[in-house]
């Protein structure tokens, strides 16, 4: 029992590693904000492309979402970070992660938006258009607010996945939360920093997971 507490819940070790963990958390938060924000915006445009009347735009959108949902994000990341330099394209670890996960994540967001857009009755479009609203105004004021409300749990779920996904960045030595925890583990020769990292992820994500359930129940009611 002592060895269990000493190895996993060693308060001294945790305190020592705290500065490193906080800087890792900061990096994780920066990654998340970039990937989530850009993903939400990019995904919307991909979804709108998918709903377009122009066939070529629909095809591009479908090809995009199919490709980047099928490709494992880690493969994409390593290719961008370690593969592209062979073609003379060097990208910093931070931007490699942002680009790789954005491609992956925006295609998932796009599918969620698409489901939301389809869920809004055609009559809503017709009513808005018949009152002289432009396509953009119809989307902004009538269709999107309803679409997003209908798929809010799925948008949130996907966001939780993004936060978890960023831990893969440790593979290319980007000093985010998990990578720094690993560093602290090898320096202190103690696993408590890993437990601390897990706890931080939990604190970050548990409220979001709760919120997803809450919205799901509200939508079902």
């Amino acid at each position, binding site marked *: 029992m002592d060895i269990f507490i000493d190895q996993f819940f060693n308060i001294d070790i945790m305190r020592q590693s705290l500065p490193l963990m906080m800087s890792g958390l900061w990096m994780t938060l920066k990654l998340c904000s970039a990937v989530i924000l850009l993903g939400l915006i990019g995904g919307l445009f991909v979804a709108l492309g998918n709903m377009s009347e122009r066939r070529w735009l629909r095809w591009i959108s479908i090809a995009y979402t199919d490709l980047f949902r099928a490709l494992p994000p880690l493969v994409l990341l390593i290719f961008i970070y370690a593969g592209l330099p062979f073609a003379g394209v060097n990208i910093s670890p931070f931007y490699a992660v942002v680009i790789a996960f954005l491609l992956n994540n925006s295609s998932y967001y796009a599918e969620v938006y698409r489901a939301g857009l389809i869920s809004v*009755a055609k*009559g*809503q479009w*017709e*009513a*808005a*258009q*018949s*009152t*002289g*609203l*432009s*396509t953009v*105004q119809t989307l902004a*004021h*009538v269709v999107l*607010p*309803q679409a997003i*409300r209908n798929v809010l749990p799925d948008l949130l779920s996907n966001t939780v996945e993004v936060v978890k996904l960023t831990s893969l960045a440790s593979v290319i030595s980007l000093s985010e939360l998990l990578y720094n925890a690993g560093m602290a583990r090898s320096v202190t020769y103690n696993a408590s920093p890993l437990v601390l990292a897990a706890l931080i992820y939990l604190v970050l994500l548990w409220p979001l997971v709760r919120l997803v359930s809450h919205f799901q129940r509200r939508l079902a009611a």
Partner: protein
Amino acid sequence: MANRPMLEVVALEKRFGTTTVLKKIDLKVSQGELVFVIGPSGSGKSTMLRCCNRLEEPTSGDIIVNGRNIMAGTRRDLDRMRLQIGMVFQGFHLYPHMSVLKNVTLAQRKALKRSKAEADARAMDMLEQVGLAHKADAYPGELSGGQQQRVAIARSLALDPKVMLFDEPTSALDPELVGSVLKVMKDLKSKGMTMVVVSHEMGFARETADRVIFMDGGVVVEEGTPDELFGNPKADRTRAFLSRVSG
């Protein structure tokens, strides 16, 4: 009542794939006139109405509203022309995430660029006219079907349209709620609104319509005053249809 045509449908054709739904329809509606369109389902009457503001894209033909051809011009021209063409749907299609007041002010603000104060005042006038000023802060889900439809009418009227199109406005309503919507439409007619109504409310047609049009198979089979068309239909198809619906 001036004789100037407010809405003119010229050689309107609509095909879905290889099926021709409308065959060279011509229709003139004068200012202040109420034209009532009847016909069996699949006769093309709703499609014809929906072509009048290009919710349905005509295959060929012209739609002239208040002297301007809405088939010519850009998408922005069309958006502007649609302000002059009010439309009321069978399914109401109020925006469920907005209060009644916001439903009636949205297009005033965004398409007509009216100020909030102006749009609110206009909306309250229109809600008053349809007898629902006291429901301004309610949400569509809290209203009966008849009330929702009257709000939808107010939403269109607030934009000062020149023509109002009604696509089976009472077909989705419980029988006891139909009267309130028809009353609003009757008021509108007495105020001189130009109206085209697709509906099965024959009693309303007899009482208020200036002209009744019978459509079948994508063509106008027969038209005349309510007395002529209901009292003494000439075409066999009209007679057969009328005996079926009054049956």
